[in-house]
């Protein structure tokens, strides 16, 4: 950010922001000031040099595996991909009407969404700085549309705040900022910052607080036309005889603080959630479909890997039919890119090094739950003027995300009825799917009473029960100590996937890790 050219050092400024506004503001400021990391993707990969007919066996047709397959074939390698599922994508996954999802334990969910409606149980957003994913989308012809993260007209809700009545994000955000600005202005006017801020800066700070917090001429945050322009009106400006607006009353500082609704004010400000964010038109798996169109001929589906054996001359992988048909098959290649999640890989017979084995065996996978709920109509749009964006709550559903597509359309629509982690996800995981959905509807009805009347059908995916990954992303026992081992070439194999990245759970991590793995593999091959 330029515009902080006041003679104060960046470190001093950060210290001040940290003191005044807490660590979250500090983090956001650091992001703005250029400390935060963006994707390291630097454009389409160039693998120069002749691989001389070398072959690569890729395990897993998720985004990491398919990125590797696409680029290695283009570079002249013989490529085969083994995939456990009947289709490609892995966690890049979308559920639509007509889909049948069988989770671990055998519970079946028949998705009954109307045509065109869908839910992404896994990744659902593509930040503007995930250059790898965005570039592949462009190259593969995957159409993107904006994903609405922050919606000032959506709600902040807690069961223990404002009698459980949801508050508009806009009101809490404006009032919090206004009150904090007023307090800081008071401190400045009491000369309490004289040792930290020069007189000249103090003047500018006051001026900025007036703008930032919408303070009046006395540096007070009060009910006015000005503040209502931000927090909304009691009676909004109209036309004609009765067009004059009536300003609204700000919520008192103590009520804002005690409500704890400020907790999610900056969620959308982190670099992964700042605008612009995208989603593929029609569902996240449009990316998988895009890859599949190009390299689908390389994929052997329904192949459950049972053994990985590498020696001085190559890699031999044994696999069986995922659906239990008898018979073992083998695939061999000179090298292997293994994108199988470590949660699964640890259960497969292999002869990786002892160091690699201990990393594989020590990585567990996070639990998470997502709900796709279909309603007969878009009541959130029609009744509450909420178009996309996210409502946050302390209920176990944690959030409700309204669809960022097909606004104003008639008929049924699907929203994300909850997205939870930790202890909450564990407990939803232990419930049968229909009970999970029923609870998500009960909880959501506390925010939107229309739920009860308008609910049509739903699905609930708990990631520990997803048969091909047993969790949603890898959790390191000791990343600092183990990462180099996991990323290093082990015999003739390189691991790839979101777990071998510093963007855990993000598709960008999977793609960057695959590109890095094949770059290093290629060096070995052309140097050999």
């Amino acid at each position, binding site marked *: 950010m330029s515009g902080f050219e006041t003679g104060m050092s960046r470190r001093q400024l950060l210290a001040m922001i940290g003191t005044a506004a807490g660590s979250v503001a500090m983090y956001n400021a650091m992001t703005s000031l250029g400390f935060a990391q963006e994707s390291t993707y630097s454009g389409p990969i160039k693998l120069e040099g002749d691989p001389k007919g070398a072959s690569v066996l890729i395990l897993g047709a998720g985004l990491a595996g398919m990125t590797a397959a696409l680029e290695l074939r283009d570079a002249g390698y013989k490529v085969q991909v083994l995939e*456990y599922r009947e289709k490609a994508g892995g966690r890049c996954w979308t559920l639509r009407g007509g889909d049948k999802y069988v989770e*671990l*334990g*055998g519970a079946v969910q028949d998705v009954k969404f109307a045509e065109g409606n869908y839910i992404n149980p896994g990744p659902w957003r593509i930040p503007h700085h995930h250059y790898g994913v965005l570039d592949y989308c462009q190259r593969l012809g995957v159409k993107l549309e904006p994903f609405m993260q922050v919606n000032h007209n959506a709600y902040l809700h807690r*069961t*223990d705040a404002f009698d*459980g009545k949801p508050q508009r994000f806009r009101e809490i955000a404006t009032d919090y900022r206004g009150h904090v600005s007023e307090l800081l202005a008071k401190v400045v006017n009491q000369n309490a910052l004289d040792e930290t801020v020069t007189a000249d800066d103090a003047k500018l700070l006051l001026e900025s607080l007036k703008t930032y917090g919408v303070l009046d001429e006395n540096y007070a945050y009060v009910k006015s036309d000005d503040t209502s322009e931000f927090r909304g009106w009691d009676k909004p400006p109209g036309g004609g005889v009765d067009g004059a607006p009536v300003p609204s009353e700000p919520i008192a500082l103590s009520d804002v603080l005690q409500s704890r609704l400020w907790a999610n004010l900056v969620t959308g400000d982190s670099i992964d959630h700042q605008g612009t964010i995208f989603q593929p038109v029609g569902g996240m798996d449009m990316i998988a479909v895009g890859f599949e169109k190009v390299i689908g001929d390389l994929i052997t589906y329904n192949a*459950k890997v049972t053994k990985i054996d590498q020696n001085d001359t190559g890699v031999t992988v044994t696999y069986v039919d*995922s659906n239990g048909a008898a018979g073992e098959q083998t695939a061999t290649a000179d090298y292997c890119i293994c994108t*199988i999640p470590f*949660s*699964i890989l*640890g*259960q*497969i017979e292999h002869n990786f090094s002892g160091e690699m084995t201990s990393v594989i*065996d020590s990585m*567990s*996978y*996070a*639990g998470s739950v997502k709900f796709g709920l279909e309603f007969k109509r878009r009541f959130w749009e029609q009744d509450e003027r909420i178009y996309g964006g996210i409502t946050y709550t*302390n209920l*176990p559903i*944690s959030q409700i995300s309204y669809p960022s597509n097909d606004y104003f359309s008639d008929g049924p629509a699907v929203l994300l009825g909850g997205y939870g982690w*930790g*202890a*909450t996800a*564990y*407990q939803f*995981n*232990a*419930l049968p799917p229909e*009970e999970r959905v029923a*609870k998500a509807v*009960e*909880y959501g009805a*506390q925010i939107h009473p229309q739920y009860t009347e308008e609910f049509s059908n739903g699905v609930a995916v*708990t990631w*520990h*029960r*997803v*048969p*091909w*990954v*047993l*969790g949603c992303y890898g*959790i390191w*026992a000791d990343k600092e100590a183990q990462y180099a081992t996991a990323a290093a070439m082990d015999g003739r194999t390189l691991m790839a996937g979101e777990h071998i990245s510093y963007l855990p759970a993000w598709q960008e991590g999977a793609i960057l890790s695959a590109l890095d793995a094949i770059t290093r593999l290629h060096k070995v091959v052309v140097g050999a």
Partner: protein
Amino acid sequence: MKSLMIVAAAALAMMATPTLAQSDAAMMFASPSKLTQTDGKDIYNAICAGCHMAEGQGAVGAGMYPALAGNETLEAAGYPIYVIIHGQKAMPALGNVLSDEQIAAVVGYIRTNFGNNYPEEVTVQEVTDSR
């Protein structure tokens, strides 16, 4: 004191959720970060059953969750205690969502159900020592 009151109010608000079943599921979701069930069976049903399944039968996909039913590795209580606290392979460490008391209770439960018959008492101290 104030924070205690807020916690109490939050707990009350959650308990007042009108349509929640009052069965063993009533205790579910009482905290966003911890399991709050105290009885071994309730703990099992609220968390373990998610992967090891309702009858301890386990499940198989690309990988698998081992059956706890008729599982001889449960003979020494120290083994399941260690795995629950620290995790193992696909099994996440649960030492941060379960207390020593809860772990002792649920280990006692799985060792005496699903065809397992290891009735020796599991003490909280054993769990504490395994942390």
